[in-house]
């Protein structure tokens, strides 16, 4: 493949960032918006061309005998520290990176367009578009990384852009603290990631993904059976690398930043905190998947973390009031779903059946569909917030008559996430559940329950927002559908969410080893999950469709549980306790004492001695010239006398 298109895909967003970031102050809002949208549209077109070329051209670089290949378009030496420690920058095309190019540029383009309407009256409009371009650049660089170090560099860059965009309303203290929290928590996780990279590359002598994933047994052999604290070194490395993914993908216990990140503008939440950046952890595991396959302990760890997180987030989402937070917890839960799906996907026959990487395909499929319908839901939530100027469903209710476009697109999003055919989420979720059941019935049953909870809390929100009872507030301020810039992305994403599940032969395109996989619906799994989803929706409808006293009765039956779920099971409080009470009080205070009483005190002592001495002798500088001369002569005579005595 020609090098021009891949270079342009990365160059256009970063150029837009520089142009809008530096020249934005002098630009009108309209010019900045049009430039940003056009730049992103061009990038999206180019990314589509690259992805279509990769999947459908039949070029020998990309596909050999029906097996899709990993192809490095270019891979240049960027930093050569020593003969062996060399950091490259490159562009890797393989099924998942081509898929991610499509996902990122599509969602990013939709968000650019949507923001034109949503952010119209906000100050700093140009800066906003500059940051969006920076984010898109970083995310594209992350997915096409040819080596793990390049991925780490762009990994940090998406962290920075996320920080900048969460704190976009920098005059709000809550936004500032949320952006700091997001940055610090993910940065803390990235420390683990870095250590993991260093351990892994120390043994394998390479950063390159293709080298590592094409020969996982070689990676295992290169560690030479070294162990640390009872676990093999490779297990440590892979678990630590996964820690970075836990931070970015908001897995427990590092999930605390994502709900707070909702302080950012809603389109940003749709782009970064629902569709693209937060799935970077899933992408990382998928990228290193063959290596994870040879480390059973790391895979089990991923499964356990994912299963716990999925359930926890789903429960918390049932008791939130802020619609963006419901969606945030829903995102956490769905990403955990993908993690479990990857974790159960072994390249090993299970009870004679070779399920080789079904979970991998399913996880990537869900990543794709989830990006579409979750972006749709977030953009829909943005339209609601735009209309009623509040994040809480208590200020909404009965909106279906006032906002028909938002209502129908939101309903499609909810049906997709709940797993109702023929919407996208059904197909991907069905494959994931099939993979989980194939591994062990427990994973399948557990995640089916989470899927039921998902349907329940999504429709709880849907009914509370669009049905329930009309808010009396509407009489003074009548809500209405959003302008066309916001409606077009909603309609587009709703259409995609409706058809992408059955129209796209995903299994033919993206599998772990490049061989096509023919998706077939597992009837028993599909029927079970549909029954559970419909049941959950019916329960939500019964409870929330018309205003009634039942929900508050239920809440009063067990107020402690409701409060705990509403407060997210006190995870923030636990973190506050650990950081403030334990770390700050014990560790930081003793360090501060040492700093003040030992290091500072030594320096102060030097200064004090010097000062005291100079005060004591300063009288000698009397200003009387004759005194100086007398001292001088006395000194000269003394020196002469001493020299004289010494010489004789």
């Amino acid at each position: 493949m020609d090098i021009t298109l891949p270079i342009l895909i990365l160059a256009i967003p970063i150029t837009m960032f520089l142009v809008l970031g530096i020249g934005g102050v002098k630009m009108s809002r309209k010019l900045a918006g049009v430039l940003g949208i056009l730049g992103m549209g061009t990038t999206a077109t180019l990314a589509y061309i690259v992805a279509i070329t990769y999947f459908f051209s039949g070029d020998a670089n990309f596909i050999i005998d029906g097996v899709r290949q990993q192809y490095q378009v270019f891979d240049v030496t960027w930093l050569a520290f020593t003969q062996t420690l060399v950091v490259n920058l490159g562009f890797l095309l393989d099924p998942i990176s081509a898929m991610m190019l499509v996902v990122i540029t599509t969602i990013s383009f939709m968000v650019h367009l949507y923001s034109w309407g949503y952010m119209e009256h906000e100050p700093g409009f140009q800066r906003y578009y500059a940051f969006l371009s920076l984010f898109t650049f970083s995310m594209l660089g992350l997915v096409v990384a040819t080596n793990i170090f390049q991925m780490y560099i762009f990994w940090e860059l998406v962290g920075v852009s996320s920080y900048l965009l969460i704190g976009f309303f920098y005059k709000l203290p809550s936004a500032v603290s949320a952006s700091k929290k997001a940055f610090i928590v993910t940065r803390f996780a990235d420390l683990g990631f870095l250590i993991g990279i260093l351990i892994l590359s120390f043994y394998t002598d390479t950063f390159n993904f293709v080298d590592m994933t094409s020969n996982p047994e070689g990676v295992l052999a290169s560690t030479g059976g070294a162990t640390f604290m009872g676990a093999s070194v490779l297990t440590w490395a892979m678990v630590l690398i996964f820690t970075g993914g836990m931070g970015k993908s908001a897995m427990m216990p590092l999930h605390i930043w994502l709900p707070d990140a909702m302080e950012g503008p809603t389109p940003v939440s749709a782009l970064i905190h629902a569709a693209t950046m937060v799935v970077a952890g899933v992408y990382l595991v998928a990228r290193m998947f063959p290596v994870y396959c040879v480390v059973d302990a790391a895979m089990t760890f991923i499964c356990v973390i994912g299963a716990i997180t999925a359930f926890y987030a789903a429960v918390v989402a049932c008791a939130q009031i802020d619609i963006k937070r419901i969606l945030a917890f829903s995102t956490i839960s769905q990403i955990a779903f993908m993690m479990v799906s990857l974790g159960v996907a072994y390249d090993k026959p299970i009870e004679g059946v070779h399920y080789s990487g079904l979970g991998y395909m399913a996880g990537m499929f869900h990543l794709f569909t989830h990006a579409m319908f979750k972006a749709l839901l977030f953009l829909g939530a943005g339209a609601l917030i735009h209309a009623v100027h509040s994040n809480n469903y208590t200020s909404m209710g009965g909106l279906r008559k006032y906002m028909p476009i938002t209502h129908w697109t939101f309903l499609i999003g909810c049906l997709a996430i709940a797993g109702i055919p023929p919407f996208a989420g059904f197909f991907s979720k069905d494959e994931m559940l099939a993979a989980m059941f194939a591994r062990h019935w427990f994973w399948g049953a557990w995640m089916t329950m989470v899927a039921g909870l998902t349907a329940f809390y999504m429709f709880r929100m849907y009914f509370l927002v669009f049905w329930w009872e009309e808010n009396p507030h509407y009489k003074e301020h009548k809500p209405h559908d959003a302008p066309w810039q916001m409606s077009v992305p909603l309609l587009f994403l709703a259409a995609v969410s409706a058809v992408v599940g059955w129209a796209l032969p995903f299994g033919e395109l993206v599998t772990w080893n490049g061989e096509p996989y023919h998706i077939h619906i597992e009837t028993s799994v599909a029927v079970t999950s549909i029954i559970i989803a419909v049941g959950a929706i019916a329960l939500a409808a019964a409870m929330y469709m018309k205003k009634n006293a039942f929900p508050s009765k239920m809440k009063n039956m067990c107020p402690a549980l409701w409060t705990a779920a509403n407060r997210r099971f006190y995870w923030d409080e636990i973190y506050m306790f650990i950081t403030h009470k334990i770390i700050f009080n014990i560790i930081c205070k003793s360090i501060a004492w040492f700093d003040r009483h030992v290091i500072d005190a030594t320096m102060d002592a030097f200064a004090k001695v010097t000062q005291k001495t100079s005060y004591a002798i300063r009288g000698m500088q009397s200003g009387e010239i004759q005194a100086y001369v007398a001292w001088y002569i006395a000194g000269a005579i003394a020196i002469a006398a001493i020299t004289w005595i010494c010489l004789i």
Partner: protein
Amino acid sequence: MDLSMLWYLVPSVVMFACGIYGFITRKNLIAILISLELMLNSADLNFVVFNRYLFPGSMDGMVFTLFAIAIAAAETAIAIAIIINIYRSIGNTDISEINNMKF
């Protein structure tokens, strides 16, 4: 009668000692300047004497002395100018009143 070097050096030392004494004890700036010139001249005398007695073939000490006399003249002119300025600003030339340049 041949005079030994001592005949020149002893007056030079006396002159220098007088200069130091005058410099430290006089209160009038003009008197201090005169003391300074005394010290300078005793040094010049030494130059000439050492040149004459120890290195009779060369002229270095003599030339140095001529330079020193010229520079001393210039320096005296500057010193007088400073003294006049001090007199104009504080009304006298008493050194015990000029001690502002201190800590």
